[in-house]
């Protein structure tokens, strides 16, 4: 069977491409850069590595999870986006921040070819939540900002109210594993 040959005269699509994961929370779908994800785990597999926060200063953060000698604040995706309670089955452990995000499920991995700025009419928390919008399969989806799940100020608040907990949780879990 002859494969179609692409004409060298045809313009090449030179737009930057980015591998992304499409995840859902409640009835909404979101996109996040695959490069920003360290690991994708089922919530069932986290079991013994989860520590409750002494003082949950933020409604969306109640636990810490430890993975590979690092600890992460577990952010509830539906609380973060102010959505009705959902049933998270998956956790996205991020690379660039000490954050693990609870999401309902991963829908697919895809290639993002366009990142559009949020229109200026948007003025709310979405400016922190999203890097912009993209179009996948003719659907407009928000592109989550990995640094937007916990802002610098929120991280400081968590650390102030639970001093050293992130480090202590990692140490305790390691010692428990050694015994």
């Amino acid at each position, binding site marked *: 069977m002859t494969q179609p040959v692409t004409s060298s005269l045809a313009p090449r699509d030179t737009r930057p491409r980015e591998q992304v994961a499409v995840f859902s929370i409640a009835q*909404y779908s979101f996109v996040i850069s695959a490069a920003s994800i360290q690991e994708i785990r089922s919530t069932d597999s986290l079991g013994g590595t989860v520590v409750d926060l002494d003082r949950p200063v933020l409604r969306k953060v109640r636990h810490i999870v430890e993975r590979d000698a690092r600890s992460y604040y577990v952010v509830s995706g539906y609380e973060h986006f*102010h959505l009705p309670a959902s049933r998270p089955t998956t956790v996205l452990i991020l690379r660039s921040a000490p954050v693990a995000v609870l999401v309902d499920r991963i829908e697919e991995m895809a290639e993002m070819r366009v990142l559009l700025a949020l229109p200026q*009419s*948007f003025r*709310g928390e979405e400016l922190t939540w999203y890097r912009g919008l993209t179009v996948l399969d003719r659907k407009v989806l928000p592109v989550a900002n990995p640094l937007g799940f916990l802002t610098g100020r929120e991280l400081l608040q968590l650390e102030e109210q639970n001093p050293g907990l992130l480090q202590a949780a990692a140490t305790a879990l390691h010692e428990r594993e050694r015994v």
Partner: protein
Amino acid sequence: MSADKSSLVPSFVVFQVGTRRVALPRDCVAELIASPTLFSFPHTTPLISGVVLRRGRIVPVLDLGPGVLGAPSPPARFFLVVERHISNSSERCAIPVQGECELVAGIMLPAAGQDEFVTGTLALNDEQIDVLDLEKAIAAGARSEAEPILAAEALS
């Protein structure tokens, strides 16, 4: 929609938000679109119900109902694409409208009512149509949507 371009009389687009007929200067209006796919996602900006994709551009959908009617406007099949002026730049937004739109020419008279977002009125077939200041109508709607939230926060 049609009008004599050579006319020196200013023209306005008359449209319906819920039960109220209002108008905007013709210059503010780009086009009328029917049944676009509305994409919604979580956000906290008042009045925005989602976005539509129009010629490769993302156009936010803004409901004028809370400002103009005091309540969200009913589901709409038509959207009027208007030009907003935000921070020294402009942006197109889509306003859900009920029924048909008309392009009319007429002299705007000073506003008689109390609404701060009404800049004047048009006399059209024995009907007085309020001409809106788009930005003030959006601001009034945003305030009215924010008030219940503030009240709820104060009570909690």
